[in-house]
């Protein structure tokens, strides 16, 4: 029950006018960003991050996380009304959401999406609430070898579980790790890969890279694909909302299953994208009439939305507790934490209780307020898409530039952003995944430092990664995941031969 006391304390931190206003502002900005083509959760958060630099960390994280919730809600609006997934994890929502809109049931689909997002997040927040206190006691066990093992696990799971061609993941990740190493090396205090340039001295900031890779390149891609939207207008009446809510209990199995999948994939670095597809596919598989999926079934909206939000929310847990982001947006929030002088990691729960519990409390409040806000403002936000793209595109470019510049007050970063924009565009088109690249850029330095500190501590003995149960099991798991495709194949063959011999 320690959790409840801490949570109440968190609410006490939040309930000031200033924070409530920031929360609303964050939600509105977030929905806006989620609806605009060419933006989306991670970019929105990255671009708006500088706004929070002068705030205290608690207000800042509340505002940013509200931008995040808002963007998640906003993504659903475009998926259902316009068949444009604002984020990769909204793709599965379009399968049944858009057909529903075509049948004139747009309001119903939207209500279903918002409600299930809310349920998914709520389950995940409950989970975080009750797991968080345990983390702080677990916290102090983490030294350099443990940290390295966890980073290794993240990297390996990307290579082992990724769906793109293996060599492209390797290219993307090694490039990210290399660029992360530019600048001064903390362990030796030596400069490397700067080629004598004063601009490269400070290294390549990953937020700048993210803004270019996702923001600018998305504009280029949207332009290339020519924006001709056909969508459905919608406004939501109370009657429709209540109608959908009344039917909710009928779908409790779907909702529970998707929440569970979401939480599991959010905490392990599977991510929201995998969660939404898995949620959708399982709902379809267990349905009595799977052929009606894809033709406008409300469960086809419930399942992926619940899973995506459960995973998007629970991804914040490993980010706060271990410093490992479970999603792109979590990675950006992680960068924010460092800017505000908070060291993400187990000790955050010990040293900055106000911050952590304020954030958790804001997840509850933000989701409730967000739900009400989206239900009432759908028509306004949907009409944003009527603004000509020729006006929106340059505004997004300017916002990206402001975001990139403000991080380090460097003109060089605007050029870097432009460069990364081109790289992102080309990489997306030739199928080199950007997620491993971003992840490597965020974690590269920390992983290398952790490894080298472990080596200094152990006198260069690699056995330190198996020196106790905790670090040993994480390292072993990482190695297993790296070779998962091979192991999976082997297991399949064993099962097959057994069956054959039977």
């Amino acid at each position, binding site marked *: 029950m320690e959790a409840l006391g801490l949570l109440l304390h968190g609410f006490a931190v939040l309930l000031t006018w200033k924070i409530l206003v920031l929360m609303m502002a964050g939600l509105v900005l977030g929905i806006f960003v989620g609806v605009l083509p060419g933006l989306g959760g991670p970019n929105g958060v990255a671009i708006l991050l500088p*706004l929070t*630099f*002068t705030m205290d960390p608690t207000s800042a994280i509340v505002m940013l996380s509200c931008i995040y919730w808002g963007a998640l809600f906003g993504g659903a609006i475009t998926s259902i009304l*316009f068949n444009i997934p604002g984020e990769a994890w909204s793709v599965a929502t379009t399968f049944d959401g858009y057909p529903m809109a075509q049948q*004139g049931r*747009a*309001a119903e689909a939207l209500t279903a999406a918002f409600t299930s997002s809310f349920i998914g997040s709520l389950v995940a927040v409950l989970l975080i609430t009750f797991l968080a206190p345990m983390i702080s006691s677990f916290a102090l066990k983490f030294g350099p070898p443990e940290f390295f093992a966890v980073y290794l696990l993240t990297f390996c799971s990307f290579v082992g579980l990724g769906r793109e061609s293996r*060599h*492209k993941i390797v*290219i993307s990740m*090694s*490039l990210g*790790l*290399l660029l992360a*190493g530019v600048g001064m090396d903390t362990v*030796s205090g*030596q400069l*490397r*890969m700067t*080629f004598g340039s004063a601009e490269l001295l400070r290294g390549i900031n990953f937020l700048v890279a993210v803004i270019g890779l996702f923001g*600018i390149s998305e*504009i280029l891609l949207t*332009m*290339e694909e*020519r*924006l*001709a*939207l*056909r*969508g*459905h*207008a*919608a406004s939501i009446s109370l009657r*429709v909302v209540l109608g959908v809510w009344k039917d909710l209990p009928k779908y409790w199995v779907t909702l529970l299953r998707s929440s569970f999948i979401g939480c599991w994939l959010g905490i392990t670095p599977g991510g929201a994208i995998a969660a939404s597809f898995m949620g959708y596919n399982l709902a379809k598989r267990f349905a009595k009439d799977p052929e009606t999926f894809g033709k406008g079934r409300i469960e086809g909206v419930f399942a992926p939305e619940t899973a995506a939000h459960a995973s998007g929310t629970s991804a914040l847990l490993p980010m706060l507790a271990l410093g490992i982001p479970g999603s792109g947006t979590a990675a950006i929030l992680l960068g924010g934490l460092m800017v505000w002088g908070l060291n993400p990691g187990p000790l955050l729960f010990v040293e900055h209780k106000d911050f952590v519990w304020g954030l958790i409390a804001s997840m509850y409040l933000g989701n409730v307020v967000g739900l009400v806000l989206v239900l009432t403002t759908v028509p306004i936000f949907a009409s944003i*898409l*009527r603004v*000509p*793209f*020729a*006006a929106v*595109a*340059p505004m997004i*470019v*300017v916002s990206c*530039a*402001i975001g990139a510049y*403000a991080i380090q*007050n460097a*003109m060089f970063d*605007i050029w870097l952003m*432009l460069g990364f*924009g081109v790289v992102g565009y080309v990489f997306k*088109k*030739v199928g080199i995944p950007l997620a491993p690249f971003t992840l490597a850029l965020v974690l590269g330095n920390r992983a*290398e430092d952790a*490894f*080298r500190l472990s*080596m*200094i501590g152990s006198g*260069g003995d690699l056995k330190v990664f198996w020196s106790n149960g905790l670090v040993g099991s994480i390292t072993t798991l990482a190695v297993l995941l790296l070779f998962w495709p091979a192991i999976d194949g082997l297991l399949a063959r064993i099962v097959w031969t057994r069956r054959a011999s039977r």
Partner: protein
Amino acid sequence: MSQTDLEIVVDDPTAPEDDSPSVVSSGSVESVVCLLLLALAAMLGYDNWRTGASWDATGPEPGYFPFYLSVILGGGSLYGLIAALLSRRKSAETFVTRAQAYRVLAVFVPTLLFCLVTQFLGLYVGSFLLIAGFMRAIGKIALWKSLLTALVFTAIMFATFDVAFDVIMPKGPLEAAFGY
């Protein structure tokens, strides 16, 4: 609920036809990307070799990881290069059509100019010129609308960042004339 089923259609006024000829194939772009990455890997690899890439008494030297990463990157891109050259399907696939390339350049070139203007005249001037120019030239939107939108947007940005939140943006002679 019939009023909820209005259709919104948003069309690009410059929409061209779809049967535009291919400019370059996916296969050749992939080969070029791999070649560039290979060159980058070689350059970084050399620099790290110079920094020191061995394993001394206290563990790896500063260049150790980056050196082997460049080797991995080099290997990956070499593999990609060979795969791209061998794959028939890829070399037939279109990377961009001429119309697409034209549209991409239509936003890339203004963005590039915007960065240049920002460097010399400051971000707010650049922002005004980019928005007004882009809306007018690419979007074919009425001049007064373009100018007004650009002015309002730039003013909001200025008020938010420079005034309200003390996040200071690059500025040029124009702002200096007003005392900022």
